[in-house]
Every structure is written in C-alpha cells, then in structure tokens.
C-alpha cells in the first residue's frame, strides 16, 4: 500500500520534471533548471516560468483532481463505472465557457472564460443539489446528475447549432476537447483555491467510504451521516472538476480509468484508493500532456482527445479482465 503511494509519488516527480524539460523550444536541462529557479532576463526564464511551469502544475492539479474525485464518486456510489462528469458539473462548466465564447464575453478580459465556466459549474451543482433533494440517497443524486448533464449538453449543442460565427463555433469545439497549452500562472492561481478546498473536502471521506462498502444501512448505523457525506462529495467534486474544466476544458476518462487500475493495488479499500488515485491521475495527465507535445508537436493534438484515445482501450481491457474474473 505505502509502496504503491511511494511509487506513484516518484512517478509524479519524474513526469513533472519531464514536463518542465520537454518542449518545442529544445532547451538544455542545465539552462532550463537554472532559468526556472534563478530567473533573470531573456526568453528562457519566461518560457520556463510562464509557459512550462504552469502547464506542468496544471497537469498535476487537474490530474490529481480527476483521480481523487473519480475514486470518491466510485466509492460513494459503490459503482466502478462512476466518474466525475456524472454529477453534471463538468458539462455545466463547459456550458458556461461555451456561452462566454459565443457571446464574446471571453474576450472582454483575460480570465473571463474560466470565470464563466466556474459560474456554470456553480449553477450546475446548485441545480443538482436542489433536484437530488434532502436526505442521503445516492440514486436521486445520479438521476439529478444525469438530468443536469443532459440539459447542459443540449444547451451547448444548441449554442453550436445556432452559432452564426464559424470561428466561434470552431473555438468552442477546440476548447471542449481539453488542453493545457498556453495556460499561464494566472490560470493556476484561479483554479488552485477551488481545487484545494475540494481536495480538503474529498480527503475527509475515506472512512465513510470504507463503511459504505457494507451498504448504506450498515454505514449509517456505524455513525456515517449519509446526507452530510453526499453533500461533501458533491461539493468537493464540484470544486475540483469545476475549476479543472474552467481552466483546461473537458478531459475525460482519467477519473474513470485511474481508480480502476489502482483499485487492486490498494486492496480495493475505497478510502486508500483516494490518495492513490489522486497521484495516479496526476501521473496519467502529466504523461498524456507530455505525449501530446511529442507525438504531433506541430498539430496541437488536444489533451482530452489523447486521454480518451488511451483511456478507452484501457477501459476495454479492464472490462475484458472483469469478464474473465481476474479482477
């Protein structure tokens, strides 16, 4: 268990370093590191500090968020098919961003798009909570999440459908594919407070998720407050996924696949899976973001496309293993 965590942490560090050192500017390792740490004038410190550092940081933050919230939702719903998008936050954040692009609000000031996406995420989560009602049932949460996802998805399509401006439509489609290219430290700072809050919230649910292994009734009798747990999971997921979608667009499959892969390695305990999945998500997104820079450097391959391309076959492999009874 702790060996798994240590191995994942090492992988995060190695890939983080790789993410800082790999790029089209083709800098040497020594000069890159000294430019990053010492700063100074010229293009080199700017490339390191303004382009590569935020990109690597966002990969870690968003990957960890997706892995953590995916593991939390799977544990809460006791369903290995659950993923962070399930509660409708990512699609409502996307709708906010899309509306801001379409209306031109995104061009008004630098952070207009992420702010619009965060507002979308907030409205989405409020709607989900209102629809799910009071009480602690997980089924109503799933249904509310599906309803909000469908609504936000339909409205996004409507915006595309009615878009009179092909450039805006193009921008919207590309934005929705998810990417970490050309993000700045400002994006890091706008996402970090929400994500930190979400990590703190989701970090508290490990034990309750363990108790839920025995079912909702047994968990309630062991002192788990199901309404409180549901609220913490929804708010925590909304914070991390809303902020992630706001700065990077929709990145799928990480929150679904990473908990799946790591579950057998932590003895399937849903509480232990939380932090392992956070690290695993960071590993997967760092690796994917390095890959989009190396596979087709001149074509701007989108991160969300790559995670889905890698994630879907991985998922099929897992289903195959599940069918054979190896899992």
């Amino acid at each position: 268990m702790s060996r798994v965590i240590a191995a994942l942490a090492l992988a995060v560090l190695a890939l983080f370093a790789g993410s800082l050192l790999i790029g089209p500017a083709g800098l040497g390792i020594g000069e890159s590191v000294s430019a990053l740490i010492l700063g100074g004038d010229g293009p080199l410190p700017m490339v390191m500090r303004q382009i590569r550092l935020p990109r690597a940081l966002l990969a870690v933050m968003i990957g960890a968020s997706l892995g953590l919230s995916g593991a939390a939702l799977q544990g809460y719903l006791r369903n290995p098919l659950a993923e962070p998008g399930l509660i409708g936050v990512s699609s409502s954040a996307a709708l906010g961003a899309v509306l801001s692009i379409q209306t031109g609000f995104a061009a008004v000031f630098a952070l207009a798009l992420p702010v619009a996406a965060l507002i979308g995420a907030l409205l989405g989560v409020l709607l989900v909570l209102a629809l799910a009602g009071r009480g602690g049932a997980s089924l109503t949460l799933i249904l509310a999440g599906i309803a909000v996802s469908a609504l936000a998805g339909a409205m996004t399509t409507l915006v595309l459908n009615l878009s009179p401006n092909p450039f805006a439509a193009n921008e919207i489609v590309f934005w929705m594919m998810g990417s970490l290219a050309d993000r700045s430290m400002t994006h890091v700072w706008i996402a970090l407070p929400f994500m930190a809050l979400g990590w703190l919230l989701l970090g508290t649910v490990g034990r309750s998720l363990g108790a839920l292994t025995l079912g909702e009734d047994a968990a309630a009798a062991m002192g788990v407050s199901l309404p409180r747990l549901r609220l913490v999971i929804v708010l925590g997921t909304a914070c991390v996924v809303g902020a992630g979608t706001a700065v990077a667009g929709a990145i799928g499959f990480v929150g679904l696949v990473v908990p799946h892969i790591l579950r057998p390695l932590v003895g399937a305990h849903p509480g232990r899976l939380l932090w392992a999945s956070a690290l695993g998500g960071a590993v997967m997104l760092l690796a994917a973001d390095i890959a989009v820079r190396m596979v087709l450097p001149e074509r701007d391959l989108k991160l969300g496309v790559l995670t889905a391309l890698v994630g879907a076959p991985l998922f099929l492999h897992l289903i195959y293993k599940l069918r054979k009874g190896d899992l």
Partner: protein
Amino acid sequence: MSLMSVSNLSVRLRNRQIFSDVSFDIGAGEVVGLIGPNGAGKTTLMRAALGLIEHGGTSSLAQLGAGPRAKAVSWMPQSREIAWPVSVETLVMLGRLPHLDPYSRPTAQDHARVDEAIGWMELEGMRHRTATRLSGGEQARVLIARVLAQGTPLLMADEPIAGLDPANQIATMETFARLAALGKSVLVSLHDLGLAARHCTRVLMLGQGGLVADGPAEKVLTPERLAEIFHITAWYQNTDQGPVYQPLDVIGRGPRSG
C-alpha cells in the same frame, strides 16, 4: 442494566401502519429472538429502534447521536452487501471504524478485536481471501465477524443465519450465547423457530400490527399463537437434550398479516 428500550414504537410507511405500540427493554446477557411472518415488520422494527427510519414513540438507541450509537449497538442488515473486493481481514476491520480516532491507524487493541472476531466465526483460514469471492454463507459469517468486531454491548442482526448450513447456523447462535455469557446482548430476527426455541433466552413475536408476545420461547410459541400468527401447527417438547421444536403443518392459508 438496560441496553435498549423502546416504548410505544410505531412506524407508518407510505400510509400503511406497519406496527404500533411496540414496547420492550433488552437488558444485559440476553439473546432475544425476533420472530414473525414475512411482512410483519421485523426489519422495520429494528431499523426504527436504531433510528434509521422515521418512527413514532421513543427508542433509547435512536435518541443517541450517530457516534455514541455506533458504540452502543452494531447492526447487521439483511442485505449482505460487500461492494468492493477487499480481504476478509479488511472487511472485519471496518467494524472498528466507530472506535478509531480521526486520521489514526487501527491500534493493537483494534487488531486484537478483529482477531477475536475472526476466531469466533472460525474464519482464520480465509483471513486473506477476497471477501467478494466467498460463497454466500461464508460472506454471511464474515459480515457477522464484522459486527462482532465492533464490540458493542448490543448487537442487532437481521436474519444473520439465513442461508447458512446447519452447523454454521448452530455455531452462530452459540456465538451469540457466548456473547450473552459475557454480559452482552443480541437482538436477532430469524425464521427458524426451532433454533429460536433452542438458543434464544427470550422471544419477541411480531404480527398483526404489533408485538404479540414477549417472553421465554415455551411461553411465546403456544399452539394458539402459532395458528393465529404463523398459520402452522408444531410439535414442542422439552427433552433431556434441551427444547426441541418442529413446525409440522400449514393450517389452511388464510389472509396473512402482511
């Protein structure tokens, strides 16, 4: 010392009165069998007494906060849910959750309780096996061990022996008797009237919207009540090998209370 006390407990679900005016106390050292036909409300009674569903009347357990209640009573629901492929040992350790301090690892005492529970349910051989791959009966024993590991003065179990083989049914009831000998108490719902008569110090009979009888098995399981509530006849004798109770025939199935 009273471990639980309910008075005038009543439950309405979807405008249907399940039962009303149920009152009883459970003291230390009792194995109380809760019997009643399907639909009489055995599960509902236990969940109401725990405070897991809305109810009328009062229940001492429901009045405790969630944390203190988890140290006063452990609950084994009827649905034997094991959501993830965890090891038997990990599953039994879940019973210690109410006793752990926040963000601390299980102590030596927690491990000792888990070992004890595993020993009681004779699960030593499958300690490291994956709980979801065990047979239904084995899973039931693992879940009983989880409840035992919680180490509460009172244990409530909803049909814990359904689906077990005869040896394990008897062994489980004897485990409950051993707990009672240690001053703990068990409230267990069951359908096997023979095991109830043999192993329970006291029987609660639920039916016709209320508590029909409360007392030692030979006083509760009278031919009249069996006919009225369960619609069966039975043979009962206090032999030199203990009480033997054998249901015999169904009495012309009339409308039942559920």
